[in-house]
């Protein structure tokens, strides 16, 4: 039967969730494809998140999300150490700005406990200002969440996908699934590039997971994209803040946070506004003004610093308050949709869950004797030893001493390496997520042309396209 089926499993979507599932399934004797409509892995809802490793302290108790975020936390923290994903163990302070908020802190701690997280601790106002001396005036107390950390928003999905590809998974970028048809023993997928047959479909299509769900003959949920605007401040502001500074959540929103980033910046955001279109990643005058107003209260000195970037993420929110994990064993379909901003943390746990669902439904999971290939991701975190600062590395290869992106100190050697990696970048955005090039304060004033030329040269890409020339 398998003769006519190119794949045992076809995963639709190569974001954090899809890539994590691909990596998990790559452990087994399976033929797996990941079909990604975008130009790159992790280029949809995955690329714009607040980059926090969540403890699940504030998840709704009893939900799948609460369970998988907690499990995903330990999986991703361990994986980060294993493959070199930038992770800084900053901890978080959930700050109360008035007595009403202060009164709600015990309930926050209690909910954390219900989610299996027992390490929260009340912090008095003096200790709070000692820990965060630049915090705006008026805070009355806080709850410490010592294990809420900052993590690289880009490297996890690249690590998952790289490991999957090295283990033989077929990553198909730039291919959109347009139709899915049940055939005997599985599915036939019509895509923008042709036809694929697979026994099982796994829906990890993020913002489009409701549409793929419908293509599979289901109709359990609708994704309403929720826009989150974020402002990234200049690295010179980094000394202003040590922890993730969280607001006290309300029934309707998690609110605006201030956090350091693993690249050495400070991020302020997100807003949360439901929008109509799944590609509406526009920032707004109102959103940016609201963030500045919030920032002025939380960390006033931050507002005197230069803004390095403003970006927008869309979360795949649904009308249901939990992840949409569904298995239709009869139709050989698993859905991992409606994964919201916690998906970065939970992705590896979702992958385990999907693996078990597939196994329970009858997919033979025979482990490969070789296990997963070892990967080591590039050191792009500020707390890591980066190539430009690594004497031994430059001595062994001078290309690591040739800085091409000056603000972020990205070297020619790193652009070369990523161009030769299993999943090379195909555009400047992809390069940015892999190396930090062009992510800095000058946004290309000094180096855009030469960075693009280097990528074109090293990656064998079309120079005109990369230079942003009009087509």
């Amino acid at each position, binding site marked *: 039967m398998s003769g006519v089926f190119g794949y045992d499993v076809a995963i639709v979507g190569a974001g954090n969730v899809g890539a994590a599932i691909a990596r998990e399934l790559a452990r087994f004797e399976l033929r797996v494809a990941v079909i990604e409509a975008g130009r790159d892995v992790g280029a949809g809802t995955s690329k714009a998140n607040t980059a926090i490793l969540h403890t699940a302290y504030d998840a709704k108790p009893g939900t799948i999300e609460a369970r998988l975020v907690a499990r995903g936390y330990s999986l991703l923290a361990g994986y980060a150490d294993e493959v070199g994903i930038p992770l800084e163990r900053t901890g978080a302070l959930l700050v109360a700005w008035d007595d009403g908020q202060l009164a709600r802190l015990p309930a926050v701690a209690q909910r954390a406990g219900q989610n299996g997280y027992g390490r929260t601790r009340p912090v008095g106002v003096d200790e709070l200002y000692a820990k965060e001396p630049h915090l705006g005036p008026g805070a009355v107390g806080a709850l410490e969440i010592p294990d809420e950390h900052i993590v690289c928003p880009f490297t996890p999905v690249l690590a998952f996908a790289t490991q999957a590809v090295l283990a033989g998974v077929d990553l198909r970028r730039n291919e959109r699934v347009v139709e899915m048809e049940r055939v005997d023993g599985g599915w036939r997928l019509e895509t923008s590039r042709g036809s694929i047959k697979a026994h099982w479909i796994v829906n990890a299509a993020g913002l489009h997971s409701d549409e793929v769900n419908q293509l599979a003959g289901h109709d359990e949920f609708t994704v309403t994209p929720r826009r989150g605007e974020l402002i990234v401040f200049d690295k010179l502001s980094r000394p202003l803040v040590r922890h993730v500074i969280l607001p006290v959540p309300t029934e309707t929103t998690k609110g605006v946070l201030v956090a350091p980033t693993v690249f050495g910046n400070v991020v302020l955001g997100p807003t949360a506004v439901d929008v109509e279109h799944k590609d509406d990643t526009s920032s707004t005058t109102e959103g940016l003004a609201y963030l500045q107003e919030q920032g002025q209260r939380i960390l006033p000195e931050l507002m005197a610093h230069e803004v390095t970037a403003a970006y927008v993420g869309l979360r795949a929110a649904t009308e249901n308050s939990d992840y949409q994990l569904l298995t239709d064993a009869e139709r050989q379909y698993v859905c991992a949709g409606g994964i919201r901003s916690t998906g970065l943390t939970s992705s590896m746990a979702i992958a385990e869950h999907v693996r078990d669902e597939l196994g329970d439904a009858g997919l033979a999971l025979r482990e490969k004797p070789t296990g997963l290939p070892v990967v080591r991701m590039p050191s792009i975190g500020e707390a890591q030893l980066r190539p430009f600062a*690594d*004497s031994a590395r430059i001595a062994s290869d001078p290309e690591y001493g040739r800085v091409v992106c000056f603000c972020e100190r990205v070297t020619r050697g790193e652009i070369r390496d990523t161009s030769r990696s299993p999943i090379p970048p195909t555009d400047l955005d992809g390069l940015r997520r892999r190396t930090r090039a062009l992510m800095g304060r*000058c946004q290309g004033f000094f180096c855009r042309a030469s960075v693009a030329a280097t990528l074109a040269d090293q990656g064998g890409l079309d120079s005109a396209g990369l230079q942003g020339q009009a087509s």
Partner: protein
Amino acid sequence: MTGGSESERVDVAVIGGGPAGLAAATSLCESGLGKVVVLEREPELGGIPRHARHQGFGLRDLHRSLSGPRYATRWVELAASAGADLRTETQVTGWTDTGALELTSPRGRSLLEAHAVVLATGCRERPRAARLVPGSRPDGVLTTGALQQLVYRHGASPGRRAVVVGAEHVSFSALLTLSHGGARAVAMVTEHPRHQTVAAFRAGARLRFRTLLLTRTALTRILGRARVEEVELTDLDTGEARRITCDLVVFTADWIPDHELAVLAGAALDPGTRGPAVDAAFHTTRPGLFAAGNVLHGAETADIAALSGRAAAESVVRFLDGDPWPGFRVSIECEEPLHWIAPNSIVAPGSGVSSPFRLRALEIVRSRELEISQDGRMLWHGRVKRLMPGRSARLPGGWTALVDAGGGRVVVRVA
């Protein structure tokens, strides 16, 4: 730092190999100083003039009119023949606790100790993000700096229909670059009531490029998916918004000094210029660290940056001869609508150089009468040539002799 770094000692390290840095190094070498090193992070020396093809470089410093690249080459030759040690592909990434410079180059990671350091890292234009312009994030949004490199150094054609934000000298230079790159500038927008360049540039732009100049207008939104498709322009007087079709947006001017190394050195920044605060002799607040050229403030022309480097060199020589680093200083602050003044602090009156001050405003100010006072005491009252963004007024420095070294800050305001 990791192990294995080598440390080297020199007399003066100049950070930045543009006009200011090269001019400083040239003068330092001509003064007979021992070892002067210029650290340039790019593969090539010369700085920003390399990217500008128009004539007119070198009028005030070299007393001739050259194209940008010719001018840059000339300064490289002067510095080299004076005996400066010119190192390219060498980026200063920070300072050690003991004040040595941390360097990265293809030759390795190393430390450099210098008796004096001249910071000449220049300035850059604020990109779209720093200006918080809302909208989508398509391709086709550049600064003049990025545009000039694309067109002149990589032969790229950046787009077809451009909207230029800003109407200063550099904005008109962007028009020329666009035309060389095969793009037409359909509109130039400025929030001010008129352009801030010389009339000849404006007239040239109108005749040659037929570019529409929209004053009192803000670019309030960028639209487009993969590529810029439209921009929204808002009339600041009526609040009326309209859209213009274009595939390229060039953000010009709105300068910010490249001040990272000054901040990392612990040198104070001036709140107006956002560059390191300096006195008339280019001393920052960190002993041994001088700053010159456009790192001190929004961009002046290359020749003025070079003259600044040359003047800073004189101070460096005196410092190396044993002149003490100024301790106490009085700061000079501007009141709005003035933007900045440079230099922006005064050490013991009457000492050191008394160079003229440069002054810019946040908007085009009708009155050109200024007054300068300290603790309510008038130090100077007079008239300057212009008060506007993008072009400096020069202010004589004689009044500094009247400053009370033990008094409060000096305030400059429009009378």
